[in-house]
């Protein structure tokens, strides 16, 4: 139970153009244990999707993993031949994307799109695949599953499609489900349904979930541990309760303050000044320094390391610097 299922170490992924390299993910490390629900939060553009695509090895042309390793269930994914990687994708490790509206092939029926994966990975008969498909659709709470398999994506609503996507990801019973902003495009009431569903699956099937989101509310509701990302790096991580109770990094604090809370009634929302720096044009020293309310001289010169802090979490900030430097052990 203590072995990490997924262990990402010092991952560096970049978009390589002829004359410059944009490091979208820079020295990123984290791990997920079996059956655990972990959140990766951060604002738009901080590299969440690039991280997940690096893990799935689905990076688009032009993007490359420059450094680091990704161990999944005892194998190093980055050195795996494409064919073996394919056998893992959709089978041991599955992914749900942000855009349920466009992530299903519009010209194929729902049933076919799910069966395809089963037949490919499990080498079962068509008939068997169909039974399993109907089964999984029922499990994700789709009424009339027998009818839905004969429908096209356009005939389904956004929430239904996202359920189909989850069904498709879950059908081979993967050990890890990566969900990249699975509810961002959905309405609140539908979001509640989907989050509910994911929780149930996690509980019943023991599937570990890496939930990628920018919504701290969702994190608080769903996850056990949180990794906060800023500009391609993890700036803070901790157990969810600890983090929400006592965030250490000024960025995490800022985020929490800026999130409006029901019934809070403040005159002004807390905000973080300035905006996320451009990857082309990153500041020297701590990446958050230009926006940080507690900025110190050292912040503009040196890059802080991710270090253990009191209470078990990790934080990348000079304010919380302690004597023992993080050595890359288990975290």
């Amino acid at each position, binding site marked *: 139970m203590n072995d990490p299922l997924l262990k990402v170490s010092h991952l560096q992924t970049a978009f390589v153009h*002829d004359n410059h390299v944009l490091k979208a993910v820079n020295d990123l490390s984290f791990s997920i244990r079996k059956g655990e629900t972990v959140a990766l939060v951060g604002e*738009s*553009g901080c590299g969440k999707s690039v991280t997940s695509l690096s893990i799935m090895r689905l990076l688009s042309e032009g993007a490359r993993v420059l450094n680091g390793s990704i161990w999944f269930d005892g194998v190093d994914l980055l050195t795996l031949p494409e064919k073996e990687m394919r056998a893992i994708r959709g089978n041991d490790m599955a992914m749900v994307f*942000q*855009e349920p*509206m466009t992530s299903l092939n519009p010209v194929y029926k729902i049933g076919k799109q799910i069966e395809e994966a089963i037949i490919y990975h499990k080498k079962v008969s068509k008939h068997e695949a169909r039974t399993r498909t109907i089964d999984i659709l029922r499990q994700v709470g789709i009424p009339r599953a027998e009818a839905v398999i004969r429908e096209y994506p356009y005939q389904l609503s*956004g929430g239904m499609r996202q359920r189909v996507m989850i069904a498709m990801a879950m059908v081979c019973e993967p050990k890890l489900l990566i969900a990249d902003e699975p509810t*961002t*495009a*959905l*309405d609140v009431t539908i979001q509640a349904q989907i989050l509910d569903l994911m929780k149930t699956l996690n509980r019943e099937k023991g599937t570990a979930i890496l939930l990628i989101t*920018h919504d701290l509310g969702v994190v608080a509701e769903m996850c056990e541990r949180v990794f906060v990302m800023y500009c391609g790096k993890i700036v803070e991580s901790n157990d969810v309760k600890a983090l929400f109770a006592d965030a250490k990094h000024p960025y995490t604090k800022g985020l929490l303050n800026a999130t409006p809370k029901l019934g809070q009634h403040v005159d002004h929302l807390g905000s973080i000044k300035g905006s996320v720096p*451009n*990857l*082309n044009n990153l500041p020297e020293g701590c990446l958050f320094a230009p926006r940080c309310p507690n900025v110190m001289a050292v912040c503009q010169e040196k890059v802080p390391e991710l270090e253990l802090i009191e209470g078990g979490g990790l934080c990348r900030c000079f304010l919380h610097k302690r004597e023992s430097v993080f050595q890359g052990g288990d975290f």
Partner: protein
Amino acid sequence: MNQVVGVHHSVAKNQKSRSFYSLFFAKLRKQKLSFAAGICILGLILVAVIGPLLIPYKITDVDYEASLQGPTLKHWLGTDPYGRDIFSRIIAGTRISLSVGFFSVLIGAVIGSFLGLIAGFYGKWIDSIIMRISDVLFAFPGMILAIGIVAILGPGINNVVIAVSVFSVPHFARIVRSSTLSARTALYVEAAQSIGAKNRRLIFYHIFPETLSTIIVYFTMRIGTAILTAASLSFLGLGAQPPSPEWGAMLSSGRDYLETAPHITIFPGLAIFFTVLVFNLFGDGLRDVLDPKIKD
């Protein structure tokens, strides 16, 4: 229906603070083939402008003793039935072919784009009328339309320009209409409308620039077609008049000699091929850079 939050972020944040043009050239340079084609076009334009000053022989210099010679040092591409230097004529013909291509498409583009803008912007019956007429013109095979128009107006290069431009009109009307339709729903057009901008301002100030990249790309691609069509008309005897060294006309008059003196057909044919090729390649590159969705 569902708002997709932050969809534009990554796109926008990538763009460095560079001017539109330097960005454009940087992108275009990457399209190696098209960039080369663009340089060839500049070369062709140069030839069209100063070529007639450089050619070794006057295009009307006849020498019946030296007729139908193959390529020699004296006549690089040989001579035609009147002993005229084919190389000189091809060089001199560049100006004609390029201007035919350019002007016919220009006229077609101006009229067609205007109609497309109006149709796309106002919609309703104006749209119906303009689009039905362009359907009719579309259903009318272009070459036949051109033949008919030249038959009505009489042969000659100017009429070829008119004929070719007429059948460019519905093409431009269509694509400009469709990009107008999408530009019309663009939020910034609505924004301008909400601050009280008049239709004229909306159309020409806000929408038109948005369709411009489509027009430019299509423009370059049509030039090739126009040159080909003009050459086909000349081939059918409906084009340029002698002694004009229009390539299609040269080709047409040389086809009798296909077996005896193939060079008089091959070289103008290659000139047409090359010119149309570079315009097409360049248009391709432009399209990839400017990225309008053109269905052609």
